[in-house]
């Protein structure tokens, strides 16, 4: 049986998830040149916000009603934490050397993890999350699409489309582009750059909450550590696609997801490479790809070459 279609579907679903999280890295970096390493934890908090919403709803409510509410609940939690982090942790350091906010972000990431670990009920072990009931969709004999994957694959492009429209067409979106290009001039033109920066954090956090719900529905569980590794992968996706470019984040995510899935499935079938295949080496191959791409295109797949802003 040819498992290629199935592995492509796996990679695509995983990649779409990376892409949704990567938006948060790329938006914030595009505007304030800050790598927000706490974004993985914002994703995790989105998951716990959604779980709290789910537990607050009467049991037996249809998933069609529950899921939108969970996304809203998760987004409220993640946006609140992200904007608070921006206001109290990053804004005071706006003029400081680049390393200061970077270290702050790493510290914040540890603090957020420990807070959830310590104070969310039973969060020391994985908490179960609602799942789609029923069998996966059979598309071909060798291609089954799981319900949660289908959910991610429908939702991610819709979110991207909405974000693209917002940035290109709306007043705030254009103000965002202006701030990204030149914050000082944008300020002179009467744009409230502080508000724009908060907006970038909030949009990233909302996307992270959507990703967290998709993740929970797929895996059936969430835990306080889940943001670390996924955040790192999403950051990689953002760099791969060209950090600062929102479509690049999604493209980078999908490429990374496909690279992982295909390397798990096929590297070991290449004669002589048996030892270098499988799940153990998936991350290695994903990063080999990243290095190769960055050697050829240092700005990432969709990134634009920009003169270094001093």
């Amino acid at each position: 049986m040819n498992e290629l279609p199935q592995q492509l579907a796996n990679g695509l679903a995983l990649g779409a998830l990376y892409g949704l999280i990567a938006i948060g890295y790329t938006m914030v970096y595009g505007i304030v040149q800050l790598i927000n390493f706490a974004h993985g934890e914002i994703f995790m908090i989105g998951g716990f916000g959604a779980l709290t919403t789910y537990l607050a709803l009467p049991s037996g409510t249809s998933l069609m009603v529950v899921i939108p509410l969970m996304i809203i609940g998760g987004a409220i939690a993640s946006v609140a934490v992200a904007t608070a982090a921006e206001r109290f942790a990053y804004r005071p350091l706006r003029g400081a050397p680049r390393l200061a906010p970077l270290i702050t972000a790493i510290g914040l990431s540890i603090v957020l993890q420990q807070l959830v670990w310590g104070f969310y009920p039973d969060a020391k072990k994985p908490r179960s999350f609602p799942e789609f009931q029923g069998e996966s969709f059979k598309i071909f004999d060798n291609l089954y699409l799981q319900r949660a994957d289908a959910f991610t694959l429908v939702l991610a492009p819709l979110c991207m489309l909405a974000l693209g429209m917002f940035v290109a067409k709306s007043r705030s979106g254009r103000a965002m582009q202006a701030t990204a290009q030149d914050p000082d001039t944008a300020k002179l033109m009467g744009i409230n750059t502080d508000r724009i920066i908060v907006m970038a954090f909030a949009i990233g956090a909302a996307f992270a909450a959507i990703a967290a719900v998709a993740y929970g529905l797929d895996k059936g569980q969430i835990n306080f550590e889940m943001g670390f590794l996924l955040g790192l992968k999403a950051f990689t996706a953002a760099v791969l696609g060209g950090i600062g470019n929102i479509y690049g984040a999604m493209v980078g995510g999908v490429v990374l997801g496909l690279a992982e899935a295909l390397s798990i499935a096929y590297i070991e079938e290449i004669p002589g490479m048996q030892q270098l295949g499988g799940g153990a080496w998936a991350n290695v191959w994903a990063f080999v790809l990243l290095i190769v791409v960055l050697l050829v295109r240092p700005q990432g797949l969709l990134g634009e070459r920009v003169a270094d802003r001093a």
Partner: protein
Amino acid sequence: MDLAAKTANKNNEVPGIEFKIEALDDQAVPASGQANAAKLVGNKEVLGAVGPLNSGVAQSMQGVFEKANLAQVSPANTNPALSQGDNWGKGDSKRVFKTYFRTCATDVVQGKFAAQYLYNDAKKKKVYVVDDKQTYGAGLAAIFSAEFERLGGKVVGTDHVTVKETDFSSTADKVKSSGADSVYYGGQYPEGGLLSDQIKKTGAKIPTMGGDGIYDPAFISASGEAKDGDFATSVGYPVEALPTAKQFIADYTAGGYKDPFAAYGGYSYDAGWAIIQAVKAVVAENDGKLPEDARAKVTEAMAKVSFDGVTGKVSFDEFGDTTNKQLTVYEVQKGAWKDVKSATFED
């Protein structure tokens, strides 16, 4: 353990000697374990130590105890290398620390026992083996694979996962297309639970089996997907099922201890009792008094200890491992672990 000392004192097991417990916590950190070991060694009155829980911590403590000639009995370390040296897998077992003993069976026994159950009792012939690349998981998976193939089964594929990762869908699909009728996972419950889930979601209705690392309620509860039919092995018999444990359970309840005795309670009791028996033998030999070199004598006497403990017959082989190789296979039934087979392992 505390109970063992109290019982010994009450029964006047060794006339003229009163047993005291000094409890130290290692928080599962090797460095703390080493500090604790040094502290115990420094206390001249300490004749034996019970613990630790984790194999990694044990590694840091063994050397300290050996230098001081202080007997150490662990109720829970399952890593074979602790007693048989790093080359145990190549048939070159040699005792590393003469002061190290344990009352629970090792991973070697556990991996082989799992293979025998899966092949002989569950009638599975084609297994897919996955591990998490850690000492415990990879070791267990290797032992299992060797025994499963020796029995005549076929390992149709192997893969590895990374600890703390959560997406194993690609590995799960490889399992499905390999045509395996079962999966063996060497590792801990967080990844094991997700792997079992994702394999079942591909539509492959096959059981996942693992060692005591996945024998945890969270393996089942952390995910909504039904895990009925999955297996895990763990050391010992369920304490409640042992006829020899009746007295222990009664005493434990009467003792008013806060925590349940759990999986290792019986082994801890026996570990403590083994030290008490060794002290008894030493004192008896020395006209009812503790000799000058009590520690060395106790360690020597440990090798000859033999009694009927909570978990069955307690004695140690030439490596300091228990000769009592009782294991239990648990199966997930209606969302809970249920023991399906308890037996004494035979090679």
